[in-house]
């Protein structure tokens, strides 16, 4: 089943089935349902809490790292397995060294100020942290300000180091069936190291 590995390197052109139906109402319902599960998990995982989120940035609380890395390990193995079986398309985001780095740093500064990121901010509001309202309104305002600058950014920053749909396995020149277990192993080792040496709370 796995023998028709990537003949074409840019996986976004994969001849995969188009997947789910385009039924708009059904997809809105599914989005809400998946969001409810996501929000439920974020709150139970403690990452809707101000102290936990700021705690990560102050190296006092490693809950966020544990949640994110566990999610990446399981999701990566699961999604590449589904992809190999021809059941899902990948949705690789474009790599633009300039925009990824600058945008990432700007995001981080905002994150340090707000302490809630877009997903955990919605979760924080759900658990009753009303200060998240200001963060969510700020997210809308900032999006519009970005749109004002989007034409200029598309002509400048987005062109700096634009590498398209670049993936780690192409950089390392490995097939996903090799790179996925390797990355998963590395992440599990990092998690184990954090658990043993830094923060042993389960």
């Amino acid at each position, binding site marked *: 089943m796995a023998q028709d590995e990537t003949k074409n390197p840019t996986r976004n052109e994969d001849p995969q089935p*188009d997947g*789910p139906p385009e039924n708009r109402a059904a997809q*809105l319902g599914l*989005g*809400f349902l*998946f*969001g*409810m599960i996501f*929000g439920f*998990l974020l*709150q*139970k995982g*403690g990452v809707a*809490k101000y102290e936990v989120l*700021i705690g990560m*940035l*102050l190296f006092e609380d490693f809950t966020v790292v544990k*949640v*994110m890395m566990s*999610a*990446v390990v*399981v*999701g*990566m193995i*699961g999604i590449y397995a589904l992809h190999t079986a021809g059941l*899902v398309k990948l*949705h690789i*985001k*474009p790599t633009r*060294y300039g925009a*990824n*780095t*600058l*945008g*990432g*740093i700007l*995001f*981080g500064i905002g994150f*340090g*100020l*707000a302490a809630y990121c*877009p997903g955990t901010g919605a979760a924080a*509001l*759900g*658990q*009753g942290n009303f*200060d*998240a*309202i*200001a963060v969510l309104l*700020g*997210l809308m305002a*900032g*999006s519009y300000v*970005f*749109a004002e600058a989007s034409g200029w950014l598309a002509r400048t*920053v987005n062109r700096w180091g634009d590498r398209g749909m670049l*993936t*780690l396995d192409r950089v390392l020149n490995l097939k996903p069936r090799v790179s996925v277990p390797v990355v998963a192993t590395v992440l599990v080792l990092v998690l184990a190291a954090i658990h043993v040496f830094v923060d042993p709370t*389960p």
Partner: protein
Amino acid sequence: MSSRNVLHVIGLIVATPMLALAQTEAVDPGATGPAWSPYLVGVLIGVLSMFTFYFSAKPLGASTAFANVAGLIGRLIAPRHTDSLHFYADKKASKIDWQVALVIGVIAGAFLAAWSGGEITGRWLPPMWAERFGESVWLRMAVGFLGGALMAFGARMAGGCTSGHGISGAMQLSVGSWIAPLGSFVGGVATAMLLFYA
């Protein structure tokens, strides 16, 4: 049609705190850690990602929803100007779509989780913030708003946020999805250290 949807979203955002306030007897302001094991939660979010890929052909991501709602509001207030912007030239960028439904679901799901766990906070100031910066709600709101705006600008520039890049993109091994969260971590640590230790 679209203006009514905007009102629904704003109504939900405003209504949620009311719901939370109705549930005050369970408040436990001392609860600061995760209720469930963060590893278990991470594993389940990974499984949830498989479901969203399979059933909705979408990766989990939160920041785009705010851009969509901003676009809708922009179209209500200044339709021609909003249409003229590069980012909103694609009409899909200002629709109530799967992502907006997802974020509304996140608010509801987190409410259910906090309610079931007796962790509804119902407060305007995180204790850790109040201890460092005082009791002014407006100061916290102003800093939160500025932080939210910077995050949205940065997320749209980088192509995603903590969930879109840091979880969904990273698990697909997109190179940019490993760079952007690293940049965020650097910017976030520097900002938080300045705020709390400077």
